[in-house]
Structures are given as C-alpha cells and as structure tokens.
C-alpha cells in the first residue's frame, strides 16, 4: 500500500516536471494596467516562440503587498515606481539584483538611468532600471476653470463642489508644495515631516467641503471629468492625455510648483524563475518601434533619449499642449521613501477621510 502510494506520487511528480519541461517558458509580468498591450505581447511571442507572457495588472502598493506575501515569488518581472523599491527591499527582501550586462542600458536616457540607479542601489547592487516616466499634476476643463495653475486651486471656493482628488500620498505631497513646503527635503527628519503632514491634513480637511468626491481609479476620474461633474482634479498626466483626445478642453496643467514626476521601473522579484525572458522583455520594449506601441497604450513617456518624439501623434500633441521647456526643467522627481513614512502618511490620509466638515 505504502510503496504503491510512493510510486504513484513519484510518477505524478515526474509527469509534472516532464510536462513543464516540454512546455514553453513563461514570463509572468506584474505591471500596471495598459503596460502590456496585446499587440506587443503578440509581437514578443512571435519573436521568442518559446516564451509565453502572462500579465497581472496591479499598482505600486499591491505589487509590494503581493510580493511580500509570497516572499518575492510568483512573478518574474515587476514594474514598481522608482521611489518604492529601496524601502521595500530593505524591509521585505523581495527583489534580486539585476545583471546589468544583460540589459541594453545604452538605449535608456542617461539621466533617468542614473537617477533610478542612485535610488535603487543597495550594498553596491542595482535593483531597478527605468522603463517609462510621467507626472502627476492637475487636470482642468479650461472652459470652466481657465485660471487653474496649481495644487491650491483644488481648494478654491470658485470651484465649489466641482473638484476631485485621489486620497493617496501624491495629494499630500502636492498640497505641501502648494503651501510652500518641500516634503522631499523633510524625508530624513521624521518630526519635521510629521509637522508638515499635520499642516497638510488640516488644509485638506478644510478643503473637503470644496471637493465632490475622491476618485479611486483612472476610469472613475474619466467619468467625472467627461460628464462635466468635475472641472478640476488631481490627476496622472496619462489620464489627462487620454481625455484630451475626447475633449480638447480638458488639459493637463503642470502645477506652478512643479509637476511631480515618477519613473516606473523594471525590477526582478527574488523568486523570479525566468530571468532570461525578463531581460529579453526589457530590451524588447525599449526598442524604438516598440516604444511607440507601448506609449500609445500607457500615455507615459519611455525612458529613452527621444521619448517624447517617439510618442504617437495624439499623445505628443497633448504633451506639447501641457508642457513647455520651463515646466520640464521644473519637474520634481519623487525622492526615495524612507521606511516608515508610508505609515505616517497612511494615518494622515485616514484622518482626512474620517473627518467631517
């Protein structure tokens, strides 16, 4: 009885390994919605017929939570933002160092590559390289809100009941900039940061009566803007560009204090099982002809030297309508979040949500 059971188990195990060896290698991507357009996946699978691509859509917070839950396994390539890697790696050890010799780093724009490297180097090992970048700022319907120019306008009584924001850390930082503070400079000093958070919390609670609702995702926000229920909102630039195509009155406005810039990266989870395929994907999507396909889907700008020129026509005109050179020079790149900061911000956000006007 016992031996036959063992035999059966052994047989099953052999069958399983044989099965997986015979089948193609799988590349499991953990990335943002629209960061893996079908067109590109098809093209990739044609070029590398032995690799299957599986995609899971997520966001920064969920990516880290998922990888933390499994100790970094279950996915072969993840795309968190550049400021979310250092602390997550220190705390949860979920990524493995990259082998830069496998990556065509010459294709990447040098300043973004150096910025990401500086942000994600631990003990001399680099954990991420840049993929695409974009900004957060405000989006205005210029017919209704022609003068909107900064974060503080979201709380302007002139737009009573017609503004919106997402209750996440971006609005805390933006509001701080709008109030004349620089949160990135306070990152190292927790007491000063808490002091800043308290001021921002008070401001956003006071602002609550001015806003219609908090949006939670791109589709949600699109509905609010396109219906005209909201005329001014905190936004990702890519969402604004998409709406610009449907209604040219809706434009992205880089706040006068500087749009907040993020870089989404490539990082390999610790338990990744298809590193070669992951490197192939990284090099593949940064090729100029593929950059345009990717940007058409994401609305974000690739981290290659001529990223803006490689945007599809409609997106390029939206970017040019929103940014001039001085706006680009004024970008505020998100600084590395030290461990523990998100917990402080989380409490601030909950206070705002729970406050009654």
């Amino acid at each position, binding site marked *: 009885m016992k031996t036959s059971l063992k035999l059966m188990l052994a047989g099953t195990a052999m069958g399983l390994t044989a099965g997986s060896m015979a089948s193609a290698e799988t590349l499991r991507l953990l990335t943002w919605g629209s960061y893996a357009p079908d067109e590109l996946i098809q093209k990739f699978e044609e070029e590398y017929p032995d690799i299957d691509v599986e995609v899971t859509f997520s966001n920064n917070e969920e990516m880290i939570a998922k990888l*933390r839950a499994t100790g970094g396994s279950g996915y072969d390539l993840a795309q968190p933002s550049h400021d979310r890697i250092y602390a997550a790696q220190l705390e949860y050890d979920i990524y493995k160092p990259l082998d830069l010799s496998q990556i065509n780093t010459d294709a990447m724009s040098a300043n973004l590559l150096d910025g990401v490297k500086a942000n994600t180097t631990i003990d001399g090992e680099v954990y991420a390289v840049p993929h695409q970048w974009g900004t957060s700022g405000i989006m205005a319907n210029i017919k209704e809100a022609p003068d909107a120019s900064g974060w503080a306008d979201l709380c302007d009584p002139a737009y009573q009941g017609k503004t919106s924001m997402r209750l996440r850390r971006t609005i805390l930082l933006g509001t701080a900039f709008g109030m004349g503070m620089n949160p990135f400079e306070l990152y190292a000093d927790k007491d000063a940061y808490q002091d800043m958070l308290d001021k921002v919390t008070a401001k956003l609670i006071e602002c609550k009566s001015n806003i219609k*609702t908090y949006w939670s995702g791109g589709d949600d926000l699109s509905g609010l803007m396109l*219906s005209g229920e909201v005329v001014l909102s905190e936004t990702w630039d890519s969402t604004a560009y998409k709406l610009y195509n449907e209604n040219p009155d809706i434009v992205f406005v880089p706040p006068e204090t500087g749009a907040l810039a993020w870089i989404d990266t490539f990082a390999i989870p610790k338990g990744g099982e298809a590193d070669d395929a992951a490197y192939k994907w990284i090099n593949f999507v940064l090729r100029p002809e593929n950059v345009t396909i990717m940007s058409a889907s994401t609305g974000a700008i690739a981290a290659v030297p001529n990223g803006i020129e490689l945007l599809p026509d409609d997106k390029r005109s939206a970017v040019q309508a929103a940014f001039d050179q001085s706006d680009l020079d004024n970008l505020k790149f998100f600084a590395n979040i030290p*461990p523990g900061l998100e917990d402080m*911000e989380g409490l601030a956000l909950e*206070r705002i949500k729970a406050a009654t006007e």
Partner: protein
Amino acid sequence: MRSDTGKLSLILLMTPFALWIVLLIILPQAGIGYVSLQEKVGPRQYEFGFKNYMDFLGEPIYWNTLLRTAWMSILVTILALLIGFPVAYYIAKIAKKQSRAGLFLLCLIPLWVSDLVRAFGWIVLLRETGIISGALQWLGIIGEPVELLYNDMTVIIGLVYTVVLFMIVPLVSTLDGMDDALLEAGYNLGGSRFTVFRRIIVPYAMPGIVSGCIITFMLTAGSYLTPILLGGKNSSWFTEQIYNQFITRYNWEAGATFGVLLLLFTSFVVWAGLRLTGQSLATTVAKE
C-alpha cells in the same frame, strides 16, 4: 465489522468538511491572530505584544469607524427585514403554488450579476448626470441637476439591495412550513390581523428572522465594494481601513489586528442581538 464500515463512512464524509474548516477557516484565523500580536520594532524585526490593540484604542478614528460600520450594518439589517418580510410572506403564503418558483427565481436573478456591476448600475442611476437626476429635470420637478451619489443614504440603499435576498430566502423557507390552519385558528378565536401577525406569524418565523438577520448583518459589516464605490468623501467603512493597513501602509500587523477586532465585534453584536430577542443559536440553526 459493521461498525467499522460505519466509522469509515463517517470519516470519509467528515473529511472534506473538517479539511475545509481547518485549512480555510481555523488556520488562516490563527495566522491572523498571530500576526496581530507582532509588534514592529525595526525593519524585519518583530516582538510579541499587544501594541497594535492599544493603538486601535488610542486612535478615535479607528473605533469610530468600527462603531459607524456596525451601526449602519444594523440599520441595513432592519431595512432588509422590513422589505424582505412582506416579499417572503407573499411568496410563501399568498402567491399561488405555480407562481412561487417563478417569483423566487425573480428574486435570485440579481445575484447572477456580480456585486461590482450592480454597484455601477447604481452609479449610472444616481450620479449628477445620471438617469434619475435627468428624469427629474425632464419632468420639471427640479431645476438643476441633483447629486444623489456619494453619501451614506446611497451606501445604505446599495447595501440593502445587495443583501435583501439573504433575508428573503431563510424567511421563505421558514414561512413555507407554517400550516395555514394555525392562521385560521387564530382568526376563529377572535384574533385581529395584527394579533395573528404578532402572536402567530412572527413567533413561527422567528428562526428565519434570526438567521436572516445574522447573515445580512455579517455580510454587510464585511462588505467592501459597495461602500467604497457608492460612498462619498465622508463615508469610511471598516473593511476599507483593513485594506488600507495591509496595502497602502504595509502594516500587516495593524491590519490583522483590525481583522480580529471586526470578527470579535460583529460576533458580539450577533450575541447581543440573540440575547435581546431571547433567541439562541441552537433553536435558530437546528429547528425542531
């Protein structure tokens, strides 16, 4: 020999159930309970202690949200009972035998659509540029668009709609078993409609009422999608805070603590409800 077979079949029958309970209910709960007792002292360093529970008590936002969630869930349960009872009574007692199955099916149909889609249905109806606002303007009842979404009332409507079926089903099955002769006897003895309702129908239906209330209360207090999608800028829900702790604050220890507290608190509310109405779980679940 025979008792051996009996034992074997009992074991075989019980195994899936026991596995289910142990692997999917008890183990995860024990894990959550364990995590909730971890205190974070530094990156990857934890100590054993009750700090997370103290933090919960020390921050009014948290227990206010828990009380608010419980209070709104009780309200939803009462509304679901008030709406569900007449429907269940009609299906079980008044409707003709042939149409009962059809009516029951009509109640079930909304369940074929996911929670998410039903919540979006409410959004389409209630938003400022939505169907109801538009219709009221067209009829000339209101002068300008009205926002019906993003407040507590909307959340309660959405939740009642989601859970009312779980009230109707146990009520129908209980009322179905009631002999019509009981009602006739009540009337023959001079009882008014109200007396018959109060002294005969309600006591008979009590097990159904209690189990329906427990199910709807637990579902409501633990729901996530409906309060998030329909709620406005002021409507916090406790499950949302659990999500925030786990996902946006990376604070699994506090999230686990909140999970344990939600379970304990809702269990306490159910227990208190049973005590107040003089029912016990045994008479509700295993009806004689």
